[in-house]
């Protein structure tokens, strides 16, 4: 489902185009003059999730070096709620001067379909800056869950319709939708238990209140290595560095099944292109 390799190829093409554009410096002159005044104050990065999760981690990993490169400071503002809608709306309605940004993840793209009455347009109300990370998910289970492989997991789910509780980091999160995708593809029935982020989900997965979950590989692997939970597979199209012992869902027998989340920095629509370019570069 997620054409990560295609994405990277496109990026290479983009860089080549960037070189071609450099032969026309005169055309960019007014923009360059305007951009010199930027940034004139600290940049605010809205993080529409709680601290410590995937979005927060990625926002800081990207935002801190970006602020240094622009000779300013970045203020991270966690504004969780409603599958990132609360934080995204703030930025959609902020001044488009490059001093307010938001880090969104796959949920932002899902919200376009999940919420027909969104208070903003996920495309038209933002100036896209950059995709900053791509992450496959990992299928993890409680240590006592009666399955050691994807095949055993699906056989158990089929034999026990509606009895497995699966957790996710939130209603409409990629982790939630990925399990719905798997249920639909395999004709299984499982009960969704949404959490307010990865931390409380993990507590209940370890405790056995839920049996299974998808979440970002990087967030779950330390707990798998520590023996707190077990991993069955990743949702990448090939084995994942740092988890090479784990099969993919496709290897586990679910033909063509891939998924993943990502992070992306957006500015409000109408942000001057030269500022967006400086941020993106």
């Amino acid at each position, binding site marked *: *489902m*997620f*054409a990560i390799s295609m*994405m990277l190829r*496109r*990026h290479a093409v*983009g860089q080549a*185009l*960037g070189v071609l554009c450099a032969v026309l410096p005169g055309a960019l002159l007014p923009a360059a003059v305007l951009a010199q005044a930027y940034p004139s104050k600290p940049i605010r990065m809205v993080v529409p999730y709680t601290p410590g999760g995937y979005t927060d981690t990625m926002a800081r990993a*990207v935002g801190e070096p*970006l602020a240094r490169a622009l000779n300013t400071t970045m203020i991270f503002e966690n504004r969780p709620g409603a*599958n990132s809608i609360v934080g995204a709306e703030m930025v959609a309605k902020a001044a488009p001067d490059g001093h307010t940004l938001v880090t969104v993840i*796959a949920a*932002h*793209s*899902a919200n*376009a*379909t*999940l*919420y027909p009455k969104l208070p903003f347009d*996920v*495309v038209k109300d933002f*100036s*896209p*800056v*950059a*995709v*900053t*990370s791509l992450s496959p998910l990992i299928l993890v289970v409680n240590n006592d869950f009666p399955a050691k492989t994807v095949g055993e997991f699906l056989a158990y789910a089929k034999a026990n319709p509606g009895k497995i509780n699966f957790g996710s980091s939130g*209603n*409409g999160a*990629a982790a*939630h*939708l990925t399990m*719905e*995708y798997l*249920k*639909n593809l395999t004709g299984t029935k499982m009960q969704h238990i949404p959490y307010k982020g990865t931390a409380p989900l993990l507590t209940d997965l370890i405790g056995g209140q839920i049996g299974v979950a998808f979440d970002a590989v990087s967030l779950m692997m330390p707990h798998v290595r520590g023996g707190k939970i077990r991993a069955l597979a990743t949702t990448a199209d090939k084995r994942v560095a740092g988890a090479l012992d784990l099969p993919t869902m496709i290897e586990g027998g679910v033909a063509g099944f891939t998924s993943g989340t*990502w992070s*992306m*920095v957006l500015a409000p629509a109408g942000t001057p*292109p030269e500022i*967006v*370019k400086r*941020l*993106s*570069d």
Partner: protein
Amino acid sequence: MGTTPDETAAFLKTEIAKWGKVIRDADVKVE
């Protein structure tokens, strides 16, 4: 940072279509 603004816009549109299909096919409701 990562991709160019144009690549980012294209990626977002692709993702909206992909997740939209997942949501419609699996009939996911959150409200």
